[in-house]
């Protein structure tokens, strides 16, 4: 008997093994077919990139369980379904929702990853930029093999590899008043993950005109800010900031720096707020603002004003319409460009300037000169030209004696008149410095055109840029 039982047990085990193997093979084939169907649906009828058409999800049919989650979906999202206050209801809403993330950078990266993973049915990504090596420390959705390629393509590939069952739409273009209405109108919720003031006003105004909630995040240095605009009678961006700030108050990550994890935190919180709105759970951060000071480990949530009756965009008697939106000049309004590029000043006469190749010749010819580097000290510590003297621009006037001394020593040692050059990172502050130096009596001072970036580009390709 024992022998017969043993034989039966091993037969059952064999059968089980074989059935389990077939089951996982079938499941694999199901996933592959679903992904294929998804692709086909995306390609037609208007499936090309940048169309934004939202085809119905292939698997959103009644499963016979009283909701429209397929067995695959139940398993994939089970840990969210297990949350009593989220459950099938919120998950179904997420799957039916559409969210547009504007910007696939430091904020957009984590926001997109979580929105794709949690099952937002239709995810739009808009960005005009390409992936660069100096993005990688914070824009964690991109991988090294996408350097030089459009951020949108890279981000969409990452989203699809996390969740092949959602629809991801790519817009490889800058958001402008000319395309914003058309693109944004296709989505339920907008996530502002941009990096400049005019875009923030434009996106907020467009959300007001279209009646869409806006999840707005920002990060710089060690600090971050987060709030939800235009939601449930709450304020819009213009209610809070009716007048744009002076351009000098708008610092950028590429100038002031940012610790990578800080936009990461804010981007995650943006995903959270978007999920709350889409799933209709919890209390979205409307009428409140979260302020993160990561260095001191402080998070503050403050109460902000409600909708302003006088608001130009959403106020009581406003006439702000789609037409006006399309014609509004956000770059003029904020005095800054929608797709910022580094500032290029031109303050000096040609004879007060020298290009990097000419400066290289001066060095090679052994010309007596003093080189002043007017960048901040922490920039100077990253990299500097040999024999340069670091006098940050704000302290220039106070440290004039050092320049006089350097010139004098040079002249005594060499027995010839010493020339005076000024350099900085990109060639703007060096012009400002030369202007001051001229006024202060150093009339021979000249700036090195394009700064250290030009030096690296035109003279020494091995010179580090940052």
């Amino acid at each position: 008997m024992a022998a017969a039982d043993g034989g039966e047990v091993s037969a059952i085990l064999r059968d089980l093994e074989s059935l389990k193997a077939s089951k996982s093979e079938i499941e694999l084939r199901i996933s592959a077919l679903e992904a294929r169907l998804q692709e086909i649906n995306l390609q037609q009828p208007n499936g090309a990139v940048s169309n934004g058409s939202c085809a119905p999800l292939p698997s959103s049919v009644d499963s016979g369980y009283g909701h429209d989650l397929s067995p695959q979906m139940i398993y994939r999202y089970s840990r969210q379904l297990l949350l009593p206050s989220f459950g099938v209801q919120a998950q179904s809403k997420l799957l039916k929702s559409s969210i547009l993330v504007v910007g696939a950078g430091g904020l957009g990266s984590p926001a997109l990853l979580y929105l794709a993973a949690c099952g937002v049915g239709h995810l739009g990504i808009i960005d005009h930029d390409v992936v660069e090596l100096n993005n990688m420390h914070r824009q964690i959705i991109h991988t090294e093999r996408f350097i030089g390629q459009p951020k949108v393509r890279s981000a969409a590939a990452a989203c699809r590899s996390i969740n092949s069952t959602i629809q991801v739409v790519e817009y490889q273009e800058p958001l402008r008043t000319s395309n914003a209405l058309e693109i944004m109108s296709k989505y339920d919720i907008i996530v502002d993950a941009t990096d400049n003031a005019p875009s923030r006003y434009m996106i907020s105004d467009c959300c007001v005109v279209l009646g869409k909630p806006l999840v707005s995040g920002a990060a710089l240095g060690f600090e971050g800010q987060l709030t939800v605009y235009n939601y449930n009678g709450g304020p819009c961006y213009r209610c809070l900031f009716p007048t744009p700030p002076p351009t000098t108050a708008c610092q950028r990550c590429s100038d002031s720096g940012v610790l990578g994890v800080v936009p990461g935190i804010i981007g995650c919180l943006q995903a959270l707020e978007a999920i709350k709105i889409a799933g209709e759970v919890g209390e979205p951060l409307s009428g409140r603002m979260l302020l993160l000071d990561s260095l001191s480990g402080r998070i503050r949530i403050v109460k902000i004003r409600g909708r302003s009756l006088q608001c130009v965009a959403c106020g009581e008697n406003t006439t702000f319409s789609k037409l006006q939106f399309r014609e509004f000049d956000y770059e003029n309004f904020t005095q800054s460009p929608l797709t910022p590029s580094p500032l290029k000043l031109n303050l000096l006469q040609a004879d007060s300037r020298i290009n990097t190749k000419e400066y290289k010749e001066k060095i090679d010819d052994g010309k007596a000169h003093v080189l002043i580097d007017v960048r901040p000290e922490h920039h100077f510590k990253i990299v500097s030209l040999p024999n340069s003297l670091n006098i940050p621009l704000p302290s220039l006037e106070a440290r004039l004696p050092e320049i006089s001394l350097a010139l004098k020593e040079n002249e005594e040692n060499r027995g010839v008149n010493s020339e005076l050059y000024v350099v900085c990172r990109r060639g703007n502050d060096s012009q400002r410095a030369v202007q001051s130096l001229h006024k202060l009596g150093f009339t021979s001072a000249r700036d090195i055109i394009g700064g250290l970036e030009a030096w690296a580009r035109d003279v020494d390709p091995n010179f580090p840029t940052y």
Partner: protein
Amino acid sequence: MQLTVEFGGGLELLCNSVKIHNVNVELQKAAEKLTMKDLLAWIRTNLIKERPEMFMKGDSVRPGVLALVNDCDWELTGQLDTTLEEKDVVVFISTLHGG
């Protein structure tokens, strides 16, 4: 009057990069109360070390700066006329645009 004045979003750069200031603001002899308007003038004289135009415009804060009294937008408490009380926390935050 003992107050805590905090700067953030880059405004601290105008005060030698110090974010939190525990200050004692003396009331003017005739005055009975201290308002935000008084405090702003006091801050401009006593805390701001450079580029005051990056903090104030006229007698108020410049556009793009949020003023918060005890974690509440000063638009809700009376703006310049907000009356301050002992141990209040007043925060000034410059709005960020980066991402």
